[in-house]
């Protein structure tokens, strides 16, 4: 039996918030998805966690419309686009190389800190790229999604997540805050 040529569609969309919180004691960063707009601060041992950013976003899964196979993406925090902030960052090097072929690079993040030791498998990143490419006119350009471990330095990275900040404010933020 021939292997299915998957045709992916977005399912199980759930709108909510991506929360970035940082500990003022150890400087660690945690991220999670919340259904609610939360700005809580709390202590946990010596750590004092405070929210750095709370952005509106959505979760989803992908399903093949040919065979019904479902790929869950509940481990995906979001997609970041490279702003070319560090010339010798591997993401920027890949971005420059791919731009020649009109391939647009986006960086996938999982939830921190778990994602640093448990990356989203390359197979799933390829499925995500396939999904976005199947939706577009690929004769003009393509999407390639890579994992965030190629970022040279998270604290120095000025890439920007494609999510919504300040949507509950009447004033749009002039600049986005550093998240890491």
């Amino acid at each position, binding site marked *: 039996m021939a292997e299915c040529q998957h045709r992916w569609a*977005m399912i199980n*969309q759930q*709108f909510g918030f991506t929360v970035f919180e940082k500990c003022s004691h150890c400087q660690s960063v945690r991220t999670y998805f919340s259904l609610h707009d939360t700005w809580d601060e709390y202590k946990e041992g010596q750590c004092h966690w405070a929210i750095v950013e709370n952005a*509106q*976003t*959505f979760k*989803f899964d992908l399903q093949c419309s040919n065979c019904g196979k479902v790929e869950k993406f509940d481990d995906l925090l979001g*997609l970041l*686009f490279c702003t070319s902030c560090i010339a010798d960052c591997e993401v920027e090097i890949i971005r420059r190389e791919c731009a020649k072929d009109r391939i*647009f690079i*986006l960086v996938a993040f999982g939830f921190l800190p778990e994602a640093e030791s448990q990356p989203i498998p390359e197979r799933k990143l390829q499925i995500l790229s396939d999904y*976005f490419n199947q*939706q*577009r*006119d690929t004769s*003009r*350009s393509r*999407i390639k999604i890579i994992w965030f471990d190629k970022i040279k330095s998270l604290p120095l990275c000025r890439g*920007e*997540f*494609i*999510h*919504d900040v300040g*949507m509950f404010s009447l004033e*749009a933020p002039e600049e986005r805050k550093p998240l890491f």
Partner: protein
Amino acid sequence: MNTKDLVENAGLKALTAVEPRDVSGVFVSDMLSDAMAGAKSGNLWITVQTHKNIVPAANLVDASAVLITSGKNVPQETLDLASQHGITILWTELPTFEMIGKLYALGLVTK
């Protein structure tokens, strides 16, 4: 209808070079996440958002153009990024509701 016809027929101002694309329909939202979840390839994305992040979002969903309504000022860095990625940014002084009415009268609908 293509993007060049759209500019002419709807009386829009092009803030970047107009990439010749067929306009498959219209998607209206001021949220990037909403556009990522719902906009379709070739859609004209109507928004009042002008942050440069509209460019990667528009690119991701393969929007034919982004139309900024209500006369919102668009930062130069947004236009520079759009030009770099071949995303057409259009602009009108009309509020979103009036602009949508005009586009509907021209035969554009949500697809």
